[in-house]
């Protein structure tokens, strides 16, 4: 049967546990191509865990992840599901870019080398093609002049934009952001948010965990509110942000807005 849905990412019945402590409970979530989904909720709600289960940085202990209609993270061998090996996970992860709260740039490499590295050693691009692409991506995030700088000599906002360039150079179908501006002063956060806004305008599919309610309302197509490891409420951004139906969402939003 041909795949007729426009869904790029489909999460079915995802559960994540640490040891015996379950933090994500049977979550279903579908993200369409080109859609920007903001994942909001109180700290400890399981937003990061859910996001990280998408590229198997946390392996979900139950449920399925489908990217472009293909089930990932497991290998069907004679009909039996067995956990995927590292090579198969890598095949999946190269299609999914991730941006972390703490940037996680490689400190011993220049900005340019940060963007080149995985293109060469993960995708197998030639060094010259990778360098050319890295230049383009750094220019795209407005940091051509920082190419030869080490991360430590760049501001936090610049580091995060380098991290975005590093992820984009891999030609991801989907970008995941885990509180990309939470470690930044507001004025530096704005450069990062502007970069993300442009990415969204260019049609990138994005799942963004964020505490930036303005960003969620203005840029996201859909807002998903999570609490206690479950999705409580979701819908068009303006609707969820302005007329939340659930009491839990209302409490969270008024607490955030009155901050």
């Amino acid at each position: 049967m041909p795949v007729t849905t426009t869904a790029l990412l489909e999460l079915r019945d995802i559960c994540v546990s640490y040891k015996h402590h379950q933090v994500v409970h049977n979550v279903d979530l579908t993200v369409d191509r080109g859609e920007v989904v903001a994942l909001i909720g109180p700290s400890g709600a399981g937003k990061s865990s859910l996001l990280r289960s998408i590229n198997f940085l946390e392996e979900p202990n139950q449920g399925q992840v489908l990217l472009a209609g293909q089930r990932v993270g497991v290998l069907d061998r004679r009909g039996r599901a067995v956990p995927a090996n590292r090579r198969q996970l890598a095949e999946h992860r190269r299609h999914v870019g991730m941006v972390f709260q703490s940037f996680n740039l490689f400190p011993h490499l220049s900005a340019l080398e940060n963007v080149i590295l995985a293109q060469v050693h993960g995708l197998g691009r030639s060094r010259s093609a990778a360098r050319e692409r890295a230049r383009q991506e750094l220019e795209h995030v407005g940091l051509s002049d920082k190419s030869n700088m080490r991360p430590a000599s760049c501001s936090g906002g610049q580091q995060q934009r380098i991290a975005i360039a590093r992820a984009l150079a891999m030609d991801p179908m989907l970008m995941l952001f885990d509180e990309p501006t939470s470690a930044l002063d507001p004025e530096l956060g704005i450069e990062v948010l502007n970069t993300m806004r442009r990415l969204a305008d260019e049609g990138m599919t994005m799942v963004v965990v964020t505490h930036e309610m303005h960003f969620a309302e203005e840029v996201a197509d859909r807002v998903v509110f999570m609490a206690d490891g479950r999705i409580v409420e979701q819908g068009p951004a303006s609707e969820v942000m302005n007329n939340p139906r659930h009491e839990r969402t209302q409490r969270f939003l008024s607490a955030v807005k009155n901050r």
Partner: protein
Amino acid sequence: MLDFAESLVRGVGQTVSITACAFLIGAVLGFPLALLRRSRNVLVRWGAALVIDTVRSIPPIVVVFLVFYSVGSGAVRLGTFQAAVIGLGAISAAYLAEIYRAGIESVASGQWEAANALALPSRKMYVHVILPQALLVAIPPAATFAIGLLKDSAVASVIGAQDITFFAFQESQATLQGLTIFLVAAVLYIALSLPVAGLARWSDHALSKRVAT
């Protein structure tokens, strides 16, 4: 005194080469040992820990004697130099394995996550992301270990390797000026360890500069 110095300097070559060869063996063998120590398989992990802890709990002089009398008396005749290098090399491997391991584990979890998220194959991740950072952390303790090894290499003299201590002992027996002679020996050991200490300081400095973002 200059005579003594001249006489003892004959041992510098052996002292340096025993230390350098043993350290090199340790630096190479310590690496797979460190990886075994981090294996996902519990038995492998425990096995590596057992080897490391066993070697580390035997005094160097006993290890060198064991090598000299066991391996050295078998089919292959080992010279005193080889026996000392093998014994001290095994000890070095055990210590450096732990130093490497600590270095690898000091690399921030975010670095592993970023490398994984970028789909880097395991070997590339180690070579290009983890080890460059881990080795920088490992240099100061490895240099401290090298200085200790330089001193421990004196045990080679008891099986007859002609190092600084060997000549110092010989001279002191012949001239009965033990204090002067061993002071000269001490100065030689200090002089040899200075460059290594310098390396440790320099890498410590480089490290603190990098950590301070």
